């Protein structure tokens, strides 16, 4: 069974990556399995300087999912390049760096920093984090702003740039077309849906940030629908994500139009989930009559 997929900068042995923010920088998961098994790894978001993030509680459980508002905590791009990228580079897998910022200038500086390393193979432009006050999602809900920042980051970076789209918009197809026209090499979708949970004993929002991003199986149908729509409007590849926890889920995303997929929340339930999905994928593809991942992509679109 041929599981390989070839995306800009990401020539991968299989279509499975852990999603940004759900895998740290891989160290913890390397205790559970060999990370060389993964098609690729998306690192936790990098900002120019170290960020502490939001107060706790930062997570809450919901029906078939969870809310999080971590707030892009990270040690800053320089430390990531110095300490985390070399760790990941020892594995035979592709590395995508997720970049974030409060201003366009910060995004550009972070993107430029990654020009110094050959061990990062693509950038994921995070314009869809719902949990930071400045930057993040404000770039991801306006077509003009999304296109402008994509163009500027493309100009600054020597790596292929994937733009991570927010589902918190009325027309995701327009967003996808805008970033494609601005030069994006690919799209990753979807980020989390903004949500809230009220804690009954305190009668207040449970998450300290009040709102958080909803992820997990609860958002899978939303992700599949949006990928199905976007696939028909752009010609650049899509890395799909949103509630994937089984090899069957992966096939569903591929059929909807994703060329590869990222697994997020499921890593918290089962730290071995990506490895197990990779093991099970050939059997699932065979069961539905496929001989390769390549031939499944977009097959669900009539």
């Amino acid at each position, binding site marked *: 069974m041929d599981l390989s997929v070839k995306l800009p900068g990401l020539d991968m042995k299989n279509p499975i990556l852990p999603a940004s923010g*759900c*895998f740290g920088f891989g160290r913890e*998961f390397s*205790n*559970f399995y060999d990370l060389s098994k993964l098609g690729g790894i998306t690192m936790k978001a990098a900002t120019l300087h170290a960020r502490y993030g939001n107060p*706790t509680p930062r997570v809450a459980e919901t029906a*078939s999912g*969870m809310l999080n508002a971590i707030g892009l905590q990270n040690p800053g791009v320089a430390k990531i390049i110095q300490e985390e990228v070399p760790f990941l580079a020892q594995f035979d897998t592709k590395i995508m760096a997720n970049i974030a910022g409060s201003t366009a200038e910060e995004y550009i500086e972070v993107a430029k920093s990654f020009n110094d390393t050959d061990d990062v193979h693509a950038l994921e432009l995070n314009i869809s984090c719902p949990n930071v006050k400045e930057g993040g999602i404000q770039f991801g809900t306006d077509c003009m702003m999304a296109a402008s920042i994509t163009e500027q980051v493309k100009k600054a970076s020597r790596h292929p740039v994937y733009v991570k789209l927010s589902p918190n918009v009325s027309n995701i197809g327009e967003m996808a077309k805008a970033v494609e026209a601005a030069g994006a090499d690919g799209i990753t979708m979807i980020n989390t849906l903004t949500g809230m949970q009220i804690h009954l004993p305190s009668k207040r929002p449970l998450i300290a940030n009040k709102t958080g991003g909803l992820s997990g199986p609860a958002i899978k149908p939303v992700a599949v629908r949006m990928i199905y729509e976007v696939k028909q409007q752009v010609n650049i590849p899509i890395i799909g994500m949103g509630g994937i926890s089984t090899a069957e889920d992966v096939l569903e995303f591929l059929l909807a139009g994703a060329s590869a997929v990222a697994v997020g929340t499921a890593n*918290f*339930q089962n730290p071995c989930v990506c490895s197990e999905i990779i093991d099970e994928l050939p059997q699932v593809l065979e069961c539905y009559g496929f001989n390769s991942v390549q031939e499944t992509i977009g097959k669900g679109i009539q």
Partner: protein
Amino acid sequence: MIKKEFMEIISNKEIALDTFELVLKNKYVSQAAGPGQFLHISLPGHTLRRPISIASVDPDACTVTTIFKVIGSGTKALSFCKEGEMIDVLGPGGNGFSLENEAGSRILLVGGGIGVPPLYYLGKQLAAQGHKIVSVLGFQNKESVFYEERFKEFGEVHIATDNGSYGTKGFVTDVIGNIGEIDRYYTVGPIPMLRAVTEKLAGTPGYISLEERMGCGIGACYACVIPLKGEEHGYRKICSEGPVFEANEVAL
């Protein structure tokens, strides 16, 4: 090292109001677990695992005993789990208590509510090393008190209840002023209690253990962080670098 293991439920019984003692069998976890560590337990129908502290370990019987309080739907589901069932666990998690003390130390254990269990395993080990143990345990009311006899196995025990229905009326801090000189303390409980205890015992070296809502439980998701004292942007991850910290290390 933390591993993903299946553990067999040996028993699961209510030992105080909404408080359950769950005994689990697994060779690896029982050999690897130390006092202060926790199990990250997966529950059917729940996205997030639940971190539950280890109350004692019997390496010969390959069992690990945990005690949890029913607070939400996850712990409620755990309370329904029956003998013979297998549960999916990441464990043992986190860094536990340091057992290094000067020989013959007088050691104070201060536990509040569901913070009491990890101190039992700790106290047993410290007593076995020849230290003198004094335990001050706080509960909401008489119905919530558990393990008093167990703690008496290795030392002096004082109980405080919020409403005075058992032991001293008031908080653990109302008791710890009257227990004399101590060389070190270990405390586990809600953050306001930890704050009060560390303030009251400022000047005495001590360790605290923290609780927080966790995501992954292995240090990857950054959900359960706590700021370091006096260091901007400094933090510790409670699940992987804690839950035990030196009393003056983190900002409560």
